């Protein structure tokens, strides 16, 4: 589009470049800026403006500057539970996902034929929304679902048993964690496999000559060189994990409060945009803090990379 505009300006007609010059002169200096301008304008409008507005909305109540929204959020009945549940979920799910994705990535390297097929199967959940993932696990974990049928077949239970009630918080938590691990490990896997492909084969071969065991090779070569990929995977995954809510709703309804869910309820049901904005600011603060922690903890010096 911008290209068309530059052309229509008729620059070519006015200053016809001499034959010897290879690069067309049509606004060469300005062109990159014209090309990125629409994207920047859009992001400013739909990223920076709402960001500023969210913060502003959260610190105004009745037209005056106040922390009333935050006070109301903190005094809300579900607040402490939402914070606790969300953090527990993140802490339980993310290490498992990273471990699982690492194992998958290493397995893929050892596969010869069929690697592409396996990779496709393992990345299918990438296209599954959190809502759909919640519904998938609901089909398995509901009272008369497949898990209970299997347990019944094995003689472990005598009839349909509820797992996802308010009375069974532990199994409800486990169910939600399972759905999250099932759905979102694929994104970690893809980032890590992209990183694994960047590690030169020679390093492993050299280690083989010195008689290194596979475990040593993994710990001393793969893991350190994978640090930048691990970092981006962790940042992306953690930010998304603090936003979790649809999978939780599909499985546990209101029995398992999470931060994003509370923001949604305050916005849509209570119609209190101020408190919803306070929750949104809270999520952003937590996400930013997590990002900074990862940036610091997994820092790599560029010269140490191949």
């Amino acid at each position, binding site marked *: 589009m911008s290209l068309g505009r530059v052309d229509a300006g008729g620059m070519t007609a006015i200053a016809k470049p001499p034959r010897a010059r290879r690069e067309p002169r049509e606004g060469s200096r300005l062109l990159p800026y014209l090309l990125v301008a629409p994207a920047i304008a859009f992001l400013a409008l739909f990223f920076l403006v709402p960001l500023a507005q969210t913060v502003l909305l959260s610190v105004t109540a009745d037209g005056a500057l106040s922390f009333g929204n935050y006070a109301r959020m903190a005094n809300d009945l579900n607040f402490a539970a939402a914070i606790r549940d969300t953090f527990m979920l993140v802490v339980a799910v993310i290490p498992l996902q990273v471990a699982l994705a690492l194992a998958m990535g290493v397995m893929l390297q050892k596969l010869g034929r069929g690697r592409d097929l396996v990779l*496709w199967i393992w990345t299918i959940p990438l296209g599954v929304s*959190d*809502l759909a993932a*919640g519904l998938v696990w609901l089909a398995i974990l509901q009272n008369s*679902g497949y898990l209970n049928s299997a347990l019944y077949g094995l003689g472990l239970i005598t009839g349909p048993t509820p797992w996802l009630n308010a009375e069974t918080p532990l199994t409800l938590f486990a169910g939600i964690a399972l759905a999250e691990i099932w759905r979102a490990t694929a994104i970690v896997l893809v*980032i890590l496999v992209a*990183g694994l492909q960047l590690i030169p084969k020679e390093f492993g071969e050299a280690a083989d000559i010195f008689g290194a065991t596979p475990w040593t090779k993994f710990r001393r070569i793969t893991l350190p060189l994978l640090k*930048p990929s691990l970092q981006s995977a962790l940042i992306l995954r953690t930010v998304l994990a603090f936003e979790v809510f649809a999978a939780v709703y599909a499985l546990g309804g209101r029995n398992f409060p999470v931060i*994003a869910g509370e923001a949604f309820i305050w916005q849509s049901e209570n119609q209190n945009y101020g408190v919803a904005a306070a929750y949104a600011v809270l999520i952003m603060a937590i996400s930013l803090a997590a990002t900074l922690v990862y940036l610091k903890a997994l820092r790599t010096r560029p010269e140490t990379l191949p």
Partner: protein
Amino acid sequence: MRVQRRFLLLTGVGVLCAWVLVPIYLIALGALGGRASVFKWPKSVWPAGTSLDSLLAFLRIEGVWQAALNSVIAACLTMLLAIALGLPAGYALARFPFRGADAFRLILLMTRAFPLAILSLPLTVIFIRVGLYDTPIGVALVHTALALPFAALISAGLFAGIPRELEEAAWVFGCSRAKAFRKVVLPLAMPGIAAVAIFAFVISWNEVFAASVLTVRHRTLTAYLLTVLAESPLHYRFAGGFILIVPSVLFIFAVRKYLFAMWGVSNR
């Protein structure tokens, strides 16, 4: 020893494939089995008496078709916007060493550290004022904010992979920059651009939070499912979940070649 290792590896791969596929198979059973199968006890994992009745019944519920249509409209708009805005930006990043290029790249990466969907909360007020609230266009605008950074970074990688010399050759033969782009670069980048488009579509199709916040009557499919979740019978929920999954799985199959190019690019 070698044989044992190989056996262990293949078992692990098999188990993990089952871990991904079996749940999808089971929700398909739940969606196709209808009312009777949902409450059957104990269940069998073999398909018995499956039919499309339950899926069709779900689609006949008032509002489902409309919601699916809204989802498709929002996703197509997201796709178009992400391409229209992201492609030029990606081309600029790949071809010009302009001042501020690094800063721009950093901003694109930084948007990922923000829960962008949450930012739809304050947009409600603005959208009501300008008449975008409760329309697929409004939803698509927010979804574009999610998809745009990806589209720009991925297409930058795509264009960087197309040799500059090809373009220069076209210039020598008298093509303008725009014509050289259209005739030489675009055809080569097309498959990758299609992958970017599909990726943007899937991001929008799957998004729940912003879609639920920004619509009331003209729900997208995810937003519709979320609101009727509590009161709809189980087999309808499974049918809805299944309908959500099917296009995404097909799309991921279509872009599988590009998944790694995408993430490799946005890695550093």
